[in-house]
C-alpha cells in the first residue's frame, strides 16, 4: 500500500462577471470537471475540503460551506472541513488534503475554491478594524503601505511595479481562459490613475466570480487515473499575526520563514524551480515574494523584474497563466491548476519546455498568512 499523496485532476468553471450563477453552482461545475479530469467518478470521492472566498464566507447562517457544497454534490465524506486563511486558503486546503490522504483518513479528496464577489458588491472593500476610522479600507491600502516602504528602503520605482503588471498581461495574452488578454505598455501603465497611491489599477488583481477544484488521491490509485499525476514534493506554512502597529509588519512577509525552509527540505534551490506561481493580489506582493523565496536578493526585486524578466521571454517566467492580475481572481487555486498543467505539458502556447518542478504560494488577510506548495512530475 502506497499512501503517497498526488494530484490527480484539476478543473474550473468560467471566471468573470457571472450574474446568473451562484458560488455553489460554479463550485459544482469545477468539482465535476476535476473529477472527470482525474478519470474518477463522483462515487470515488470520500473527502471534501473547501476554501470559500471572502464574499461567500465560511458560514451561511449556521451552515458551514463544506456542508452546503457537500450536500449539493451528494457526498457523505469520511473527511471534510473549510479553511479561512484569505488568499493562502487554496494552497492550505491542498496541504490538508495531502495530510488526510497520507494519514489514511480518506482516499480521494476534492479541494474546492469558489466565490461570486461581483454579485456581492463591495465585499473586497471591507473596513479593517479601528483603522477604518482613518479611511484605511480594502486590501489595496495596506499593500500600498508596504509598497511605499519598499520604495523607501530599496529605491523601488513605480515603473518596476508596472513591470510585474506588464508581465502578467503578456502571460495572459497566451491564455484563452484569461480575462485580460490585451497587452499593457509601460506608457499605458504610467498614464493610468492611482487607486491607492502608489498602486494603480494594473497593480491590483481582478475580482471575479468563479470556482476551481483539484483532486488529491494516493499513489495506490495512480493506475486508475486518466492523466499523468503530479507529485507533492514539499509544503509548509508560516504566519505573521502582527498588526499594523508591529515593527516590520509592512517590510517583510512570513514567506521568508516558510519558503526557504520548504525548498531546503525538498532539496531544491530556487534556481531548480521551473514553474513559479506566486500569489499576486498586488504587484508589490510578487516583488516581496521573489526576495522571500530567494529568487533574488532582498531589496533587488525591482531591478530583477525589469526588461520583462518575469514575462514569457524572461529568465524566470512568473504566473504563466496571467495570475490574479490578468487571468482571474481564483483564490489561489488557479495558480495550483496552472502548475499542474505546466507539469503535464498541457499549457499549450505558454508551455515551459521540460517543466519538472513547480512552486505555488498563497498569501492572505492583512499580510498575515502564507502557504507554500512544491510540485513535481
Amino acid at each position, binding site marked *: 500500500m502506497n499512501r503517497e499523496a498526488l494530484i490527480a485532476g484539476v478543473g474550473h468553471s468560467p471566471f468573470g462577471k457571472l450574474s446568473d450563477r451562484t458560488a455553489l453552482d460554479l463550485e459544482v461545475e469545477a468539482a465535476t470537471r476535476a473529477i472527470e479530469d482525474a478519470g474518477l467518478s463522483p462515487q470515488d470521492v470520500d473527502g471534501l475540503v473547501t476554501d470559500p472566498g471572502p464574499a461567500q464566507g465560511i458560514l451561511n447562517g449556521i451552515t458551514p460551506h463544506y456542508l452546503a457544497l457537500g450536500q449539493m454534490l451528494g457526498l457523505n465524506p469520511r473527511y471534510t472541513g473549510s479553511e479561512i486563511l484569505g488568499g493562502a486558503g487554496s494552497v492550505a486546503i491542498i496541504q490538508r488534503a495531502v495530510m488526510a490522504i497520507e494519514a489514511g483518513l480518506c482516499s480521494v479528496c476534492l479541494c474546492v475554491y469558489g466565490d461570486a464577489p461581483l454579485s456581492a458588491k463591495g465585499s473586497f*472593500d471591507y*473596513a479593517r478594524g*479601528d*483603522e*477604518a*476610522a*482613518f*479611511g*484605511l*479600507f*480594502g486590501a489595496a*491600502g495596506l499593500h*500600498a*503601505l*508596504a*509598497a*511605499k*516602504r519598499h520604495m*523607501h528602503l530599496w529605491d523601488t520605482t513605480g515603473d518596476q511595479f508596472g513591470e510585474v503588471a506588464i508581465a502578467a498581461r503578456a502571460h495572459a495574452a497566451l491564455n484563452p481562459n484569461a480575462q485580460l488578454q490585451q497587452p499593457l505598455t509601460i506608457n499605458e501603465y504610467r498614464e493610468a*490613475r*492611482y*487607486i*491607492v*497611491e*502608489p*498602486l494603480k489599477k494594473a497593480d491590483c488583481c481582478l475580482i471575479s466570480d468563479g470556482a476551481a477544484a483539484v483532486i488529491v488521491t494516493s499513489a495506490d490509485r495512480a493506475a486508475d487515473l486518466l492523466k499523468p499525476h503530479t507529485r507533492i514534493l514539499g509544503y509548509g506554512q508560516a504566519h505573521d499575526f502582527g498588526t*499594523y*502597529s*508591529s*515593527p516590520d509588519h*509592512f517590510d517583510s512577509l512570513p514567506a521568508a520563514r516558510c519558503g526557504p525552509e520548504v525548498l531546503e527540505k525538498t532539496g531544491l534551490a530556487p534556481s531548480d524551480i521551473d514553474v513559479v506561481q506566486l500569489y499576486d493580489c498586488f504587484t508589490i506582493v510578487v516583488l516581496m515574494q521573489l526576495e522571500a523565496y530567494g529568487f533574488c536578493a532582498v531589496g533587488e526585486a525591482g531591478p530583477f523584474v525589469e526588461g520583462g524578466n518575469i514575462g514569457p521571454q524572461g529568465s524566470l517566467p512568473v504566473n504563466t497563466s496571467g495570475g490574479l492580475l490578468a487571468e482571474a481572481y481564483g483564490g489561489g487555486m488557479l495558480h495550483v491548476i496552472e502548475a499542474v498543467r505546466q507539469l503535464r505539458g498541457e499549457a499549450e502556447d505558454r508551455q515551459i519546455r521540460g517543466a519538472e518542478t513547480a512552486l505555488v504560494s498563497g498569501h492572505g488577510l492583512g499580510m498575515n498568512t502564507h502557504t507554500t506548495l512544491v510540485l513535481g512530475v
Partner: protein
Amino acid sequence: MKSVSGQGEVFSFVIYHRTYHPAIPAPYVVASIKLDNGVLLISNIIDCEPEIVHIGMQVQVVFEQKSGIKLPMFTPTVHTNKPFQLKRGNISA
C-alpha cells in the same frame, strides 16, 4: 497607561484617490506614524498637501472631532523656539 509626546515621524503613507466611504472623501492621506517612543499607529496626515508628505517627515498630533469622537490625526511639525504644546488636548496610550 503611559503618556506619549504626540510627536513622531511618517513611517509609511498612501494617498487614497478613490472614495471608499462618503464620510471620508478622496483624496486623503493614510499614514503609519512612528511616535517618538517607537509605537506605530495608523492615522491621517491633515492640513497639508498630500504631495509634500514623505517618509521620515516630522509630524505632531492634533485631535479632530469626527462623529462624536476625537481621533488623533497628524500634521507636519511646526518648528518654533517655544516648547511644543498641543492645541487641542493630549494623547495617552
